[in-house]
């Protein structure tokens, strides 16, 4: 059975970059471009997801990602609901599987899930009957972040291949880093990981990235400098001695950025710690920093992902309806 020309994604969920093909990645980015245009119009609303129920389940605090998914869903006409999971049933001892069972009974169509533990979103996806989007699981993956970063890079650089990209800072604890390493690697870019050894375990070299402990060396001739957020609890003596020592050696400022290519762009997934991993003025420099563009691309990429997953969902349901005995 052939369906409408723009196909959905191969899988039912978006759990990570790892299972995506290059074609799927590019399909998401191409569709996202259309939504960038839509989002810049006065009237942004469509009915693409009309009748679709989207539930945002955040087991870990988030402001910008949750807002981005919520706006994306609303612009597509979905019924969007936020469940603040930290404050609810989890506190009362409900297991993740029980939560999934409860949700199934409510018949949602798209679940957007963030969870503090790696693999938790995959587990939930096995137990529910709808599409699941990973909005960040532990240190594992944050696929929509990598996709929005990719879209930003492609728009700024005009291509998404044969670029040298430095990902800097707390690699060890970063799901953003893992998803970006996977995505940029699939598209044939050269990836450098830069950070202190305590935040950059040696195993990362085996993922095919170059590992640098020295910022100046790591940034040399890069096209893209991607800074990562350093969590507060990792700053004071646990993984690095202090904020000032970190900033001195690994904080991005104009002097260190001078080692990158003159047209290198600066990215950050936010929220930023000014004066920790990045100089405040540099973050605001509209000639180098694309941090605000990243936020804009975030909404568009999430719209594209939900659109494609909904297409797949409709195809699935249509196919199921065609099978005798399964309908009704």
């Amino acid at each position, binding site marked *: 059975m052939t369906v409408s020309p723009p196909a959905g994604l191969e899988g039912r969920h978006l759990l990570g970059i790892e299972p995506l093909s290059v074609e799927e990645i590019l399909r998401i980015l191409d569709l996202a471009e259309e939504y960038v245009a839509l989002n810049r119009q006065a009237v942004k609303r469509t009915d693409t997801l009309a009748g679709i129920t989207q539930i945002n389940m955040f087991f870990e605090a988030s402001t910008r990602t949750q807002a981005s998914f919520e706006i994306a869903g609303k612009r597509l006409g979905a019924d969007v609901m936020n469940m603040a999971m930290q404050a609810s049933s989890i506190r009362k001892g409900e297991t993740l599987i029980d939560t999934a069972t409860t949700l199934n009974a409510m018949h949602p169509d798209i679940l957007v899930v963030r969870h503090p533990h790696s693999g938790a979103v995959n587990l939930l996806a096995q137990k529910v009957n709808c599409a699941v989007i990973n909005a960040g699981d532990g240190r594992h993956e944050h696929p929509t972040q990598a996709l929005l970063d990719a879209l930003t890079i492609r728009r700024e650089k005009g291509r998404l291949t044969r670029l040298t990209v430095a990902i800097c800072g707390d690699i060890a604890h970063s799901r953003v880093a893992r998803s970006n390493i996977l995505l940029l690697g699939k598209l044939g870019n050269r990836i450098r990981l830069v950070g*202190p*050894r*305590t935040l950059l375990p040696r195993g990362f070299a085996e993922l095919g990235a170059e590992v640098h402990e020295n910022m100046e060396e790591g940034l040399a001739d890069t096209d893209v400098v991607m800074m990562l957020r350093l969590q507060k609890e990792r700053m004071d*003596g*646990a*993984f690095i*001695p*202090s904020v*000032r*020592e970190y900033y001195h050696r690994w904080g991005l400022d104009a002097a260190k950025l001078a080692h990158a290519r003159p047209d290198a762009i600066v990215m950050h997934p936010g929220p930023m710690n000014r004066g920790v991993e990045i100089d405040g003025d540099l973050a605001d420099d509209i000639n180098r920093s694309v941090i605000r563009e990243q936020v804009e691309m975030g909404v568009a990429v999430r719209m594209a992902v939900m659109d494609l997953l909904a297409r797949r969902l409709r195809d699935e349901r249509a196919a199921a309806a065609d099978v005798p005995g399964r309908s009704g």
Partner: protein
Amino acid sequence: MNEHGMNGAAGEAHPREEGRPLLFRNARIIDPAAGREIRGDLLVREGRIAAIGQAIAPPEGAATIDCAGACLAPGIIDVGVKVGEPGERHKESYRTASAAAAAGGVTTIVTRPDTAQPIDTPETLEFVRRRAAEVAQIRIHPMAALTRRREGREMSEIGLLMDAGAVAFTDGDHVVEDTKVLARCLTYAAMMGAKVIGHVQDPGLSRGAAATAGKFAALKGLPAVPAMAERMGLMRDLALVELTGADWHADQVTTRSALAVLARAKEAGLAVTAGCSIHHLTLNEFDIGDYRTFFKLKPPLRAEEDRVAAVEAVASGLIDIIASMHTPQDEESKRLPFEEAASGAVGLETLLPAALRLVHGGQLDLPRLFRALSLRPAEIFGLEGGRMQRGAPADLVLFDPDRPFILDRFALHSKSKNTPFDGARMEGRVLGTWVGGRQIFPAGDG
């Protein structure tokens, strides 16, 4: 990399001294690198050794010293010296430590950060360097704390401290108990190329101990730590060093069973080094006698078989460094019941005569002794001294190895007089000490 020593007083402050050549004649020149001694002359120009040989003609305007057959060796580099600044200047200041070192033939000290206010920030280190540069005549290389306040919880600013001149990192006798914290500290230090000094001791077993478990502690009723605690501490640290690739040195390895572990690690190719205090090489637990607190050390004095094993380890090179572990304590800290008394002994001035006991006893020859006192400390800490060769800094000690004396603790230059050798018969007197070609002992010269 470690050439930011504070030799201001020894060099730049007295430029006129450097211009004048200095010729030592008729000396027994001890060359630890070559492992031999030669009879001859040594010429110093511009603060460095310019020539070593027979019957060197004195250059124009040279000062000449007739050594009359006395020994001329590279100045001692004493690793692990505690100076009471900041916070306990009444116990030892940089001025008195420098004077004590000069009198003991010590030309370089590597200082400990376990001061009353620990040296754990670049600001404190700067203060210490400034104080030292103002008053000291010897070379001083400070170590800094590995963790903040030496509490074993958060790593100190290793990079900024290195920039400020820290030559190594140690929490002194505080063991970092949390292996995760220590692993991260060692990983970070390895990345920075920072040397870490460990104190090998199982923290649980050693808590509250005042003596080594065994016959003596049983007889005297003292809380004791089994010698095995040292081996346990060493094994743990060696595993973490292997894991992290850290540049690591054990401050003191003092027991037979730990030395066996150290030997296996070195044979297996692990690039670790170790020291031993002169007190553990020359005294044993029975020297404590009637609860004499000047003999209370950390780790505590060991059984005689452990002492013998440590001496053999120095002779074989298994133990790299002999240090004084100079720890000044005032009378009040020591005039207490043994269990309550502070640990540690002064040692800058007694290090050489005590070490010469091993030479007189036939366990070591002089080149081997100075390998442990001067050459290996220089090599391990990346310092220039310790070598009897052309171009090396003229940091020298002239001594008569056989001259006998009875040690009077009140004659020591240290502010604190807590030596276990008070009243002891010793052999070996320092006749003169030079740093960068300038004589700093006996005082009053120039």
